[in-house]
């Protein structure tokens, strides 16, 4: 188990109602982490209802949902913003 800081942007933050949280996780990759997060609350499940339209950055580098979380300290989830 490792401790990871999770950051949420745009509609993810709005749905979850927190900009960040610290989680203890056994997830090996981002996809497993998202599955774990969805179990935390209905808000989390709503935020990740369409994970394909969300991008992830591991320690501030863009990554795929298949990317390993080994050694990662910060995971940021962000969708495209549309407003102007």
């Amino acid at each position: 188990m490792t401790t990871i800081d999770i950051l949420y942007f745009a509609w993810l933050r709005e749905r979850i109602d927190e900009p960040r949280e610290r989680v203890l996780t056994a997830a090996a990759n981002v996809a497993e982490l998202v599955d774990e997060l969805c179990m935390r609350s209905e808000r989390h499940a709503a935020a990740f209802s369409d994970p394909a339209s969300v991008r992830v950055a591991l320690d501030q580098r863009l990554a795929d949902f298949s990317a390993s979380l080994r050694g990662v300290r910060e995971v940021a989830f962000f969708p495209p913003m549309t407003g102007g």
Partner: protein
Amino acid sequence: MEIEAPLYGEGELPRYERHILLREIGGQGQARLKRARVLVVGAGGLGAPVLLYLAAAGVGRITVVDDDSVSLSNLQRQVIHSQQRLGMAKVESARITLAGINPYVTVVPVETRLDRTRAADLVAGQTLVIDATDNLPSRHLLNAACTAACVPLLSGAISQWEGQVTLYDPVNGAPCLACLFPVTPPEELRVTCTSAGVMGALPGIIGAMMAAEAIKEIAGAGRSLRGRLLLHDALWGESRQIAIHRTAGCPVCGPLQKDPT
């Protein structure tokens, strides 16, 4: 012997003194600004500060595109417009304001909604294109047109309290919009200014960042946002930058990529 027309109008140059004093801009950078042609798509929240600062900076020719007119709910954040111009086309309202700030800048107002043909025509010959639109279909249209024409696309977007800024430029190694966000989210997940609100000063923050990046890019100053996405959260006072990269096989910029990573 042919005599070249002077670059600046009579009495124009002193207004740029504070830029010329900057080592990173100087006389050469200011001349690049004056010779530049910039397309700004969207004369709303983000377009307002972008247009104001680019005109003030002496960008030679600014084409501004929008099909909307000024409404009361715009005035909380779209500071280029005014109470007296309610109902006026935004591009015309913008033109009037910019003429008042810097009469030496050529402003070309284009009251239209983007489609594929118009986007290609508008992008052709521009030094830089600025995406200040308020919807994803227009953003993707502009991305495709800029990618095809090899014109860098400075893109900003906002949502309630947060903003994103980056410079898409696949021909120079940076990703395009479709590399970064290949999937358009379903309607119910999207957050728009109309449906979810937006803090009035936010487009000022993000739009001014875009204007700064545009001035840097044109003048050749500093380090651009190519390959970096800036995320700013005004509610929590936090910023993050994400290293972003091209996607191999991207349907939009893939054919341009010699060495996708």
